[in-house]
């Protein structure tokens, strides 16, 4: 079992908490009073969150609390109706999903969304598109630019796949992979876009305990190797409490608690949200 690592969260000027080592740098993500309402229903409101440059943060909460909606707001799948998202200091208000990605946010999906008919390697290579330069004609006429960049992409794809020891699957069709491998491939694909913030939506869903333990190690490894921030949604409390440095708890679209794993575990509001109100004796 992975050993628990403790991080001290310290306040930065906007009174948000980030890990101590990130305190001198601009936070990678700042959400200020973020919210969205569908018709009259406020799915998420008053969402404030700051994530340090190399922080592993967790977003937890009961089903239907609005966690995935937060991801959709951050990646502009939904346009927020309230508030601001600052990505590395840039307001994402006018960005599209693709632009948000090109500016640094990559994500995975709760219901896996791979390019099923492409091979594993192609799934990874297609994510490098923003970093490739050769144009349509170079592709059609197989100009030197094509060969050069395709070679780089091929090697980079295998390198990224090796994080999860998936190099051997490079030529397999993505849709034919087992469930766990599909989840891992989604992470690799997201990494291939070279993000500064990685959003993982229930990365451990459907995995057995040993797979989950391995995933935890890999999430940490990814953060250490790429020096990026990771925000994850997860129901596996063991995973969340073990690898997240900061945790935000969402219930009915609002943040009810924020802090270190220890803070969260001791927070009565969190216990109430998960287990219901304690009956007065």
């Amino acid at each position, binding site marked *: 079992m992975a050993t628990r690592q403790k991080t001290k969260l310290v306040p930065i000027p906007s009174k948000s908490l980030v890990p101590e080592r990130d305190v001198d740098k601009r936070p990678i993500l700042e959400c200020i009073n973020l919210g969205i309402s569908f018709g009259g229903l406020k799915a998420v409101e008053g969402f404030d969150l700051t994530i340090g440059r190399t922080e592993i943060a967790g977003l937890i909460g009961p089903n239907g609390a609005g966690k*995935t909606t937060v991801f*959709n707001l951050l990646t502009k*799948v939904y346009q927020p109706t309230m508030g601001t998202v600052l990505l590395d200091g840039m307001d994402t208000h006018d960005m599209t999903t693709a632009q948000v990605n090109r500016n640094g946010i990559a994500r995975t*999906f709760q219901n896996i969304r791979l390019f099923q008919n492409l091979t594993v390697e192609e799934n990874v290579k297609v994510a490098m598109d923003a970093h490739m330069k050769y144009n349509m004609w170079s592709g059609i006429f197989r100009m030197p630019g094509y060969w050069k960049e395709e070679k780089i992409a091929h090697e980079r794809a295998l390198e990224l796949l090796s994080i999860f020891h998936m190099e051997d699957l490079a030529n397999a069709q993505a849709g034919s992979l087992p469930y766990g491998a599909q989840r891992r491939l989604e992470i690799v694909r997201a990494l291939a876009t070279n993000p500064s913030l990685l959003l993982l939506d229930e990365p451990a869903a459907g995995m057995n305990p040993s797979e989950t333990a391995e995933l935890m190690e890999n999430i940490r490894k990814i953060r250490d190797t790429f020096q990026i921030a990771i925000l994850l949604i997860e129901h596996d409390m063991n995973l969340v409490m073990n690898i997240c440095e900061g945790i935000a708890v969402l219930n009915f679209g609002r943040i009810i608690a924020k802090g270190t794993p220890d803070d969260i575990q001791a927070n009565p509001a969190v216990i109430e949200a998960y287990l219901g109100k304690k009956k007065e004796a």
Partner: protein
Amino acid sequence: MTFLNFLISGISLGSIYAIIALGYTMVYGIAKMLNFAHGDVIMVGAYICFYAVSRFSLPPLAGVVLAMLVCTVLGMLVERLAYKPLRAAPSLAVLITAIGVSYFLQNTALLLWSSNPKVFPSVVGNGKIEMFGGQLTISHVTIVTIAACVIIMLALTWFTGNTRMGKAMRACSEDKGAAQLMGINVNATISMTFAIGSGLAAIAGVLLCSAYPTLVPTTGSMPGIKAFTAAVFGGIGSIPGALLGGLLLGVIEIFAKAYISTQLSDAVVFAVLIVVLLVKPAGLLGKQIHEKV
């Protein structure tokens, strides 16, 4: 006054489109398929009525009923033999099959009834009402067409809203799997939808040929495509949408013919469709479904 004349003939043509569009829209709603053979069922209906009335001297009403019966059976048969085995197949395969059925019906008609145009006798005679000193003329066909359209719409709205089968149809079009779990016989419901759509197609065929009396094996193609357009126009899957789309399409077509150009009227109709879809991507009354992320 000419404007009013055009408007009335537009509504009349639109009523025919609306009746055909109902068939498209109901089948699309429930089977999620573009039934390209629907237009040819119209042609079959018209031929049956034509032969019943002119060869076997049946009264026009009996001819219409016979046409409806034949088309209903035909529609159910086509569904059973060609579409049902493809329920799980990709939608393109179903589309191609529907096109195959369309060719089949057209060519069977060609063999049975030859390509010589038949002059269709109007089932309601050629009488007309004149108003305002002859400035405004409304033929009996026009009145019957519009009335038929109104009656069919009311009946269908009542049917889908109040009967067991109607509710089953709505349930199936929402979610076939869930409907089946609730004990609805999905196959029977789909079959019934084809039956109703094809029966309506027969009526549309008779009305169409009463107004435009040249009958050939390809008579159904263009009105079929136009009615399909009308269904999309109004929001495919929606019954009021089919009515609205059909009427608008008919009126636009007649006005385009009258005020712009006869040859370009089809282009105008399709251009309007494109503009509507750009503004309302799911048609006038259609509901836009967003994919859940």
